């Protein structure tokens, strides 16, 4: 492992903020993307694709519904990457 988990979490948070179009400050680890932050399900594909590119991983599209907040998204990426 080359990066410590907190750094990864920070980076993932940035990627999410950029792709669902919210300010980083508003993006808590548990705030729900769709219900609380006004994202739509298609924005989550943007997040998924950005994570794939950032970490050279492939995330199954069926994981999309699990990506409800920062925490859960981190777990999806971690599973795909084998972190």
């Amino acid at each position, binding site marked *: 492992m080359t990066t410590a988990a907190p750094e990864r979490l920070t980076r993932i948070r940035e990627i999410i903020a*950029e*792709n669902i*179009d919210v300010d980083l400050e508003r993006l808590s680890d548990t705030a729900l993307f769709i219900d609380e932050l006004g994202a739509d399900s298609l924005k989550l594909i943007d997040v998924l*694709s*950005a994570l*794939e*590119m950032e970490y050279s991983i*492939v995330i199954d599209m069926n994981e999309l519904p699990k990506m409800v907040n920062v925490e859960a998204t981190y777990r999806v990426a971690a599973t795909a990457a084998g972190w």
Partner: protein
Amino acid sequence: MSNATAVPRAALPPDTPVITGWSAVSPYGIGREAFAAGVRAGAKTAVMADAAHGTLPSPEVCTVPGFDVQELLGKRGTAKMDRLTALTLVASDGLLRDADGEPAVTTDDLTGVVLGITMGSLENVTDFLRQSYTNERPFYVDAGRIPFGSLNHAAGATAIRHGLKGPNTTVAGGRAAGLLALNYARRLLGQGRATRYVAGSAEEFSAAHAWYEATAARPGEPAPLLGEGCGLFLLEPAGTAERPPLAAVLGIETRVDIDDDPFATAGACARRALERAGVGADEVWAAVPCAAPSDAGRAEYEALAALVPAEALRRVPSMELLGDTSAAAASFQIAAVLSVAAADPDSRGRAALVTAVDRDGAVAAAVLRLLGEDA
């Protein structure tokens, strides 16, 4: 020749499409005033290209000055927006909103949008493909940019921004696209499919477009000076127009140059347009060719010179000043006529001829009756 008297609005048949508003985002700047002032001054717009474009086939460009997308449209939803959409949205704000950002035009479920383009945002599509070719996997592409790569995105985004649910169409035709869009709007208004139309055309400057144009140029021809921008018009039937008309669209004619004879084709198209509009060639007050930097553009000028009074061709400064603005060109030509006419009371009731020739063979001509700006 005596000046025709102004045509009172009531004299227009109620289904005549009239232009009741316009806006432009152009190398002269953002907004109608900047465009009108630039046109009247006959100012040049070429500048050294921003270094962010990378290596270009030609160092000079006619880009929209001070065009900061996030400053003009806000941060939300704009981070990945293509330039073509941004130019169009800023122009649509100029047309449909007042200085406070409030709606300035009545719109409803039958307000249509038609936008003329060349090939959408070439920067978006080439960036997308470049990612697909050069990234580790071919589907490692920025999904957030994908919607902006749809050729109809700018028109759809205009509808979303202003809540316009009427017919929403994008037409491609390069330099003729603005006139094809206007004709499309005229037809659909005539068939009752829309009550009013936001009609115009747009082009973005990008390195990708510049390289395609330079590559397409014939050997020995210099890379063309390229411009960009968006011109939009509010088009309504005269009988139900809510604002005083600036000009009536008397007719639009189109042809295709199937024999590589742009002189003959442009001439035939312009003559037919005037004939159908019931306007004699010697009555034309202003004639504005697209001034494309090509044999076709030069032939178009010659065709008009052989047809209309010399002073008509001098009335509006050459569109060369804006660079080759491709799909935006025809809308800028109309906006330029309106700008010059607004400053000249003699223009009232007179006819204007606007023509376009495109490399792909489309040729178009529009005849307008200038109705002046009521204070």
